[in-house]
Structure formats: structure tokens, C-alpha cells
């Protein structure tokens, strides 16, 4: 851990440093949340989309804002904050539209995923903070998703998730998910896998 001296050398104030998400939840909670994210990844990579979709709370939003290449001085501090505005998003689903996406995958006619892509969701850098609401947590994590499709198609998507997880019995529900893809121009032919 950095000493106070090093912090000030880097111009990092102590409160900002704390808010970076150093462990502030019991270690069991951290482990439980990580295990939840790994299990979720397994559902996606095993094409268990219906079960995966049931991890979302009734009032959940699942969205991927676009990223922008802007001058540093005109860069918005947080693109995710804007996603509630009129700016277009790659998707901005509630549980109903998410349900339709799963229905599409189950239709047997969704050619972009039939035969299905093989995907590998790697989830890492899991940072947990209490959300202020009882039983809810702000969870930031990084992901790397590898897709291999048909014979020779490979896509790699890296990015970040900002989740709100809600305690639900022994496990959690996803109450909110913002996905920030680290690509401005998406370098693939579609985004037909879930993140």
C-alpha cells in the first residue's frame, strides 16, 4: 500500500484514494460476489441464457453506452452517467427487452448465434463497495470476452462492468449493469453475445 508521502507525490488526495474501492466489505462478501460473477460467466459460456436472464432483478437495467473519442478537455468525465440521456447506446434493456433477446436466441432462427458462438468470459479486478442501501453492493469489474465463431472468426472484447448487486437469499440479483466496452469503433460484425 502507498504511504501518505507517495500519495501526495502523485497528487492523489486521501479521500479519492479511499474511494478507489479498497476492500471495505467483509472478505466473505468479496468472495461470494466473485463466485457469483464466475458462476454467471459460466452460464453465458455454457449457453444457459434463460437461466442467466433470471439473475436480473425485475427493475433491472442492462445497458452498454457508446464510447466517444473526444478532445481531453471536452471529454465527459463519465460516459456511463450520460446513458440516461438522449445519447444513443449499443443497447439499453429492461427485463422485458432482455427477455426478448433470450427468446430470439431460443428461436432456432437467430443465425448470428446459430450455430452458437463459443465464448469465454473472463472476469477480474473485482472491486466491491456497499451501495448505501441495505444488502446492495456496487461492484466494478473488468472483463475480457473471447468469441470464436464457425471456422475462423475470432473477436476479443475488453471492458468494464459497473454492477449493482442485490442480496437475494444465499446469492445475488443483478439490479443494474452498465457495460463500458473499450472500443469506440466496434471491431466485429456484431455484438450478438451477452456481456
Amino acid at each position, binding site marked *: 500500500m502507498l504511504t501518505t508521502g507517495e500519495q501526495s507525490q502523485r497528487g492523489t488526495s486521501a479521500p479519492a484514494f479511499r474511494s478507489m474501492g479498497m476492500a471495505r466489505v467483509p472478505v466473505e462478501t468479496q468472495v461470494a460476489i466473485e463466485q457469483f460473477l464466475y458462476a454467471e460467466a459460466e452460464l453465458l459460456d455454457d449457453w444457459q441464457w434463460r437461466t442467466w436472464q433470471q439473475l436480473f432483478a425485475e427493475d433491472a437495467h442492462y445497458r452498454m453506452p457508446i464510447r466517444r473519442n473526444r478532445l481531453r478537455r471536452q471529454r465527459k468525465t463519465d460516459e456511463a452517467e450520460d446513458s440516461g440521456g438522449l445519447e*444513443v447506446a*449499443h443497447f439499453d434493456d429492461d427485463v422485458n427487452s432482455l427477455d426478448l*433477446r433470450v427468446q430470439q436466441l431460443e428461436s432456432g432462427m437467430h443465425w448470428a448465434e446459430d450455430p452458437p458462438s463459443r465464448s469465454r468470459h473472463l472476469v477480474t479486478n473485482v472491486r466491491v463497495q456497499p451501495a448505501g442501501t441495505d444488502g446492495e453492493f456496487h461492484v466494478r469489474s473488468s472483463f475480457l470476452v473471447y468469441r470464436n465463431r464457425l471456422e475462423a*472468426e475470432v473477436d476479443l472484447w475488453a471492458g468494464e462492468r459497473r454492477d449493482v448487486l442485490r442480496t437475494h437469499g444465499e446469492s445475488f440479483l443483478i439490479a443494474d449493469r452498465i457495460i463500458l466496452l473499450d472500443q469506440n469503433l466496434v471491431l466485429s460484425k*456484431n455484438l450478438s453475445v451477452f456481456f
Partner: protein
Amino acid sequence: MSDTDATRLNELVDWENGLIGPEIFINDDIYRQELDRLFGRAWLFIAHDSMLPGPGDFLNTYMGGDPVLAIRQRDGGVRVFLNACRHRGMKVCRAEDGNAKNFMCSYHGWTYNTAGELINVPNLDTAYFNELDQKRWGLVEVAQIAQYKGLWFATFDPTAPPLEDFLGDMLYYIDAWVDRTPGGIEVLPGVIKWTIHGNWKLGAEQFGGDGYHAVITHASSLGTFDPSFLRDIKGIEFASRQGHGYSMIFDRMTRFADDPLGRYNQAQVPERLERLGDARANTVGNFTVFPNLSGLPGSANLRMWHPKGPNEFEIWSWTIVDKDAPEEVKRAQRTSAAFTEGAAGVVETDDGENWDLIGQMLQRGTQTRKMAWNYQMGHGHETDHDPVYPGRVLRNYFGEGPQRAFYRRWLEFMTSESWPVAEALEPDRREHEASRPGAFGAASALRREVHRADHR
């Protein structure tokens, strides 16, 4: 590719018989010639007026293979420059949009103002002995720029005819989505950009008229979520002598019956009927403005197919809304558009699958390049004298007339030394208008003038 290859191109593009050799989708020489002869001359879409609201607002886009910078001027006009420094050709602006007073090249520091003038050269005295004539080294500007109802287009060709002539009978169909309310449209902030490993013409030709693919390609979205969409489709297909195309389905205005915008659209019907007439008011369509602007008015979508090599293109996709619509309608439009179109849209993901795989096959194969593709659907069933719709019209939703017209026009651009004049087959649009006062009366012509004045 030398000029004698016109013979070869004529063999590959037999639009009269509806046969196309796929070499035009993969050949590098043909692609280079396309950038020069087609994208170097045609009117190309730059931006909608609402994307550059104030002085100094800029955005980066492409005209064919070349990056261009569109900048709103202090006098309210828009100018478009090659985004390439006159010293060594570095991009002078790398942000996709924003606001600026000037643009400093990050290589050696030559600086240009928003009018494209070279206003600062580092070490002008100690390096150039004050001998550099700055006036001669401003950014290269496009030859012509013009707008139609807020849609800005530019061309590198000083001999290109006026924009409205280039758009020709397509104007009738463009009006159906830009001029359906008094306030016109606006483009929501942000653009979805993604990459297809295939040829840009595959996208352009599909949006010009290929309603045929929707039934199969979009079975899991259009067919599953709203089966009525694909049940005995009634509509028309329009092919322009200028290469444009539009196809529309009658008696609906959105792609899904339960679309959250249904109520708003329903309330708009009387206004739309009054402004547009019966023939265009209550329809869902898709179109291509030759060569690479397309859209889906029923899904609020507008897009460009930017070529990035013979076998790669980018789709840039925007969402359009009625400018005067309430905020919650715009918000609903934004969400519903994202659900259907774009890189992650339930409709669009299945198009990417097709275009990308065709690209792989052409890239790797030899025999698959030799096989002629069939563009014969509806051939011989179209008319140039439809009593209602301008252009060459097929009174059927399925057909490949727009594709035949697209490749005919493409061939003309590719094989002619000077601006390829398209001899008119169809009656002149203005005569056509005059003969149908119901659809385009004097009042609506006047309204168009007023609307245009608003945009200045």
C-alpha cells in the same frame, strides 16, 4: 486498373440481365478505382444540420477512403475540409466531434482555423525565412457542399450537378421521413460504429430494396416478435435512374406493433397525411441514397456504409427523431432503435452474419468469385409510368429493381471519364409533382421553402 478495363467491368455488371460477377466486391484494383471515380465524384452525405449546432462545432467523417472535417462556420454555413495537414498529411483533428477555435497539427504544429486557413506556422522566421505564403497552404476543401432540408452533402467534383438533381426522384421519398412534421427531424447525439468484413456495396444494395431477405434473415426478430410484420406484405419498390432505391410496406409506421412509439405515431397520422399524402404517410421503408447513405425510417435509423478496403466496411448508425416530439417520445425512440438496429440490435446482428461470411468466402475462394450472382427478381414487371410514385416502380414488395439500378449507375461512374450523365427515363419529378396536387400541392411546396429558410 486502366481505362481499357471498362470492357471487363461491363462483363462483370450485366444489369440488363440481372447478372453480377462478385469480383466487384473483392478486387483490389476495382476498389481503388471505385474510391477515385465514384467516391471522388458523387455527392456524399456528411451530416444532418442538428449534428453541428453552433459555430466551431466540428465532426470527423469520411468521404470514401478520405477523412474529412465538417465545421460549422460563424455565418451559420458548414464547410468540409480534407482532414490532412498540408505539410506532411497528418490528421489535424483526431477527435470524432467537439468544438474548436482552431486545429493544431500534432506533427510540427501548423495550425488552421475553422475556415481552414493556415494561421500559424512554428518558426516561420527562423525556419522559413518568412518566405512561406500561408494563404496558399490552407486545408484542402471539397469542391461543393449543399443541403437538402438539413441533410448536408459534399462532393470532390466541381462538375457535379446540383445536389437536388443528383437526388432526383429520390426527393419524393426523402421527404417522407425528413419532412413529415413542421419541425423536421433531428439526429440524437452519438453514433454506433462497427466493422463488417465484407464489401460496402452489400449493405448499400440491401437497404436499397432487398425486402426479400427480411423474411429469412430476420425470422428470429421481425418474425418472432411480431409475426404480422412478415405476413402477406403489401408494398412497393422504387428504383431511381440515379441509382437510389426505396422499398416500403403499407399500413404501418413502426416495425413492431407493440412499439412504445405506437401511440405517438398514431397521433401523427392526420398531420402526415396532410403533409405527405396518402401514398407515403403510413409506411415503413428502407432506402439507399446512391452510393452509401441508407436508412430505415420505420426504425428511426439513418446510416452510412464507409468503405475501408475491398473487403471491409464500417457502419455508422444514427437515430433520428421528430425535432418537435416530446422528450419522452425521443427517449422511447432511442431505446427502441437500440433494441433493433446497431451492432447489438436484434435485427441487425443477423445481417452482419451474412455480409461477413460472404466476405470470407470471396477472400479465400476462386470458384466462388467466378459464379455470377442472380439479380433478376421482378425484372420486366416494373413501370416508369406509375400514376402515384415517381421513378421506376414495382407494385410488389419483393424485387431487385433498386439493385439493378444501383449497379447500372455504379458502372456508369466506374467507366466514364467525366461526370456520368444519366439520361432520364422517367418523367421529370417536377412535372410529376404538378400532375398530382394531392400529394404535392402548391402549399406543400411553399412549406418546403419555409422549412429550408429555417435551416439557414
